[in-house]
């Protein structure tokens, strides 16, 4: 037991590893915030494209389905290697000069957009068709009905699963650390390899957990508020 504590949660090593892991963790947070903003917008667009009606939109729908199918099933590690080491190899100057961190954000965005598209789609499909018909019969166009009637209800319903994916995204920023971005997990690995003590990983884990717990409580709160509201409306 003593040996276990010494290797994983040693107070001295905790303090020693803290500054490096913290500086790495800021990179995690940075990558997560940018990627999440991009994901929320892109995924909504793709979800809308996927729901477009009519035969004319068939190729667009096909593209959206192909995208989500492919990237939802591709491990993030593979996408990240391709983005960070593969893309700069193409030789285009703007890719060559992009930082590993920026390319890592691209990889995270590509993969998580595929997940979140499905979340949005579930939300949109959960709005009863009669809502849409009522909106159209009032003279709203397809896009207006989507914008003012369907999406407000759909997005409100999927906020909890969206936040869940947000937490997943935040954790997966650590994967980028294996490919040249010195974020928290890479700093912890480095500490472990230099001092043969694994407390650095514990430090990194503590940081991640500290960030996810408030998010989880926030999600719980949102769900509770919605329940209260909907129940009151039903009486």
């Amino acid at each position, binding site marked *: 037991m003593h040996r276990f504590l010494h290797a994983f949660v040693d107070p001295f090593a905790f303090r020693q590893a803290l500054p490096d892991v913290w500086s790495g963790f800021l990179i995690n947070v940075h990558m997560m915030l940018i990627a999440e903003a991009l994901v929320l917008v892109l995924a909504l667009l793709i979800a809308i494209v996927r729901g477009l009606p009519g035969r004319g939109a068939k190729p667009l729908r096909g593209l959206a389905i192909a995208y989500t199918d492919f990237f939802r099933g591709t491990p993030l590690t593979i996408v990240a290697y391709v983005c960070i080491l593969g893309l*700069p190899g193409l030789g285009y100057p703007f890719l*060559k000069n992009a930082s590993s961190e920026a390319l890592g954000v691209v990889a995270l965005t590509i993969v998580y957009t595929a997940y979140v598209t499905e979340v949005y789609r579930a939300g949109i499909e959960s709005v009863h068709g009669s809502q849409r018909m009522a909106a159209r019969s009032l003279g709203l166009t397809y896009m207006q009905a989507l914008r003012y009637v369907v999406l407000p209800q759909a997005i409100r319903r999927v906020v909890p699963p969206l936040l869940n994916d947000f937490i997943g995204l935040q954790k997966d920023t650590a994967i980028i650390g294996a490919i*040249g*971005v*010195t974020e928290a997990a890479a700093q912890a690995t*480095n500490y472990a390899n230099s001092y043969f003590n694994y407390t650095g990983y514990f430090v990194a884990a503590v940081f991640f957990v500290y960030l996810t717990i408030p998010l989880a409580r926030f999600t719980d709160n949102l769900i509770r508020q919605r329940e209260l509201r909907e129940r009151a409306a039903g009486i």
Partner: protein
Amino acid sequence: MKRLLPLVAAAALLAVPAASARPAAPPTLKPGALTVALNPPAVGFQVGTLRGNTVVNPTGFEIDLARDIAAKLGIPAAKISWINVPFDTLFRPGAKPFDFAFEEATITAARSRVVDFSAPYFNANQGVLLSKTATAPKSLADLKKMSICAQSATTGLDYVQHKLQAPSSSVHIYTSTSAAFTALQVGRCDVFVMDVPIVASQKKTKPSAYGAVAGQIVTNEQYGAVLAKGSKLTPDVSAAIKALTTDGTIAKLQKKWFNIDVSKIPVLK
């Protein structure tokens, strides 16, 4: 069953003298066989194909050396199994899945606390390999201003972080040597700091992928085979390496696999 019995009896008869023929079998994991850990590729030292955790058809300096050591231990070359153990897990404390590991591991005091090292079999300094677009650093101060690729858990990374003290924002860490070489090739960084023989051999194999080997940093490192802490095999491996050094085998192997004049590479100060 009846027909099997004579076979079993014959096998038993055969097995008994075979086991008693060599009473002083070296204390390997599987008696009479040797498990050697590698982490290819390191051009010159070891290249091979990975099939799951095993390395198929490895060749290189360290492979030849391992075969020579096995011969000294009385183990035939056919009884050697080659497994892949990633370098960044090599110095994990505890039991090892191999008898010894040849992974260009520098002998350091910190590592010696968690693993055993054999007698040294190679001397090396740190080398600075340029990307195709970077200009060569003239001094260590120049090097510090460049963006640097390094491999996790290496003495090269340790040098960059703790001796050179390059700012962490300009140090890119990769978990494998091949990822770091690719990163340098595609211009993720200006230089890759890694042992001279490794970068010089790589440059020789793929001359158009990188810039020059711009310099070396004198660190006087020695490579040793890595064994589990307190392994009973350590003295045997050390004795074999010492014998192979004295009789000139190691020098011959170095000439065969490297043939690089390291003294022509400028020393950075």
